């Protein structure tokens, strides 16, 4: 068990190190989320109140994560490193978990910028909304890592990722928006927890089959 976690930690560290060096994905995500929020300001009519803004926050977060997820497996594809990882005696699911944790770190960094900007531009965020963001981020990265690996195995990869990710992201958006604007946020937070549990376990178990023959 500790060997497994050691593998996961080594893999996640590797991704963080790579991003720190290349510095291409994270700045792009930060800039993208800010630009999207500004676009939304112009997209919203003047007198709609706060609720629609929360919806758009979630759209911004989902599409920003897509940006990050599209690049998630690029280092592994460059010189065939993914084959190297798959050949290693470590559990293949550790590859998924390491990647998910790293993606989560990047998404969190983007959110640290996006959320204050949102509060500044649009409307306040309470504890429930923040809890929603946390739970939703876990779900996005868990499913996203797996789905991104699927897309990476295909010919049309950049185009394909949003197509296979968005239907799976719909429940996340529901949970997130609900935790922000509903009068019973606990229901939605519980739902997000359920989504995370179901899809994280599924992704964890299925990853092996996506990267092997």
């Amino acid at each position, binding site marked *: 068990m500790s060997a497994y976690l050691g593998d996961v930690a080594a893999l996640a560290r590797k991704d963080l190190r790579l991003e720190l060096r290349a510095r291409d994905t994270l700045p792009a995500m930060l800039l993208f989320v800010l630009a999207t929020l500004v676009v939304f300001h112009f997209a919203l009519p003047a007198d709609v109140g706060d609720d629609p803004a929360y919806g758009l926050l979630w759209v911004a977060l989902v599409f920003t994560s897509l940006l990050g997820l599209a690049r998630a497996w690029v280092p592994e594809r460059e010189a065939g490193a993914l084959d190297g990882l798959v050949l290693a005696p470590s559990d293949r699911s550790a590859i998924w978990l390491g990647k998910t944790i790293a993606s989560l770190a990047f998404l969190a960094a983007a959110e640290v910028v996006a959320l204050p900007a949102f509060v500044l531009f649009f409307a306040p965020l309470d504890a429930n909304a923040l809890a929603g963001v946390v739970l939703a981020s876990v779900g996005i990265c868990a499913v996203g890592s797996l789905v991104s690996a699927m897309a990476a195995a295909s010919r049309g990869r950049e185009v394909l990722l949003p197509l296979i990710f968005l239907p799976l992201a719909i*429940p996340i958006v529901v949970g997130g928006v609900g935790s922000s604007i509903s009068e019973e946020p606990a229901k939605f937070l519980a739902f997000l927890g359920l989504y995370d549990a179901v899809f994280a376990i599924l992704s964890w178990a299925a990853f092996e089959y996506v990267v092997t023959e």
Partner: protein
Amino acid sequence: MSMRKPSLTLLASLATALAAVAVAMIFFVAPEDADQGLSQKIFYVHVPIALTAYACFGLAAWKAFRLLTTRGDRYDLESYTGVHQGTIFGALTLVTGSIWAKASWGVWWTWSSNQLVLFLVLFLFYCAYFMLRYSIEPGPRRERISAVYALFGVALVPVSFLAIRLASDFIHPTVFTRDGPQMTGEMFAAFCVSWAAITLLAYVMYRVELAGKRTDANLRELREVLAP
């Protein structure tokens, strides 16, 4: 170790016969609905089609599971055909649902029908299945990725349904409501016959498509073997 399957012709004839009986029952046996009148009859077609779509997706997921756990050769095509049939019936669900909405309430679409919205999400998801599948080289990789995707679909069904239920909280529901089937005996009988007919029809279509795909695959293999 497969049992001898009943002949396809026999099943097709049976399906046609059942369909004829169902039509008769729908129009002559089941009473007309007080509120919606004739348009309510679509219910006898719409709901079985929806149920059949679910069954197809469930079948596809089961075959996918078998593929991943046993490495049997046949499961890939069976799973794929299941998804294909499910998508066809899913599209039909959306169409019949839309017709029913227009006939009952005057709009071609409404977000207040949880079932309809769920099918829209599933339709998007399973359409992406085909895009994913056909952008990967044929081979074990494609089979496995398709199988994993089909399994995710089946997990998505209850989760999405829950999400849509919760979402109706703040996506303000319109005044349209659909009365649940408090069905009389005759209505229930008509419904069951219709359901049986449509399920059988789906099964026949599944077998036909599967046979076609298998023949295709065998033909390609033969060509390969015979090629110089």
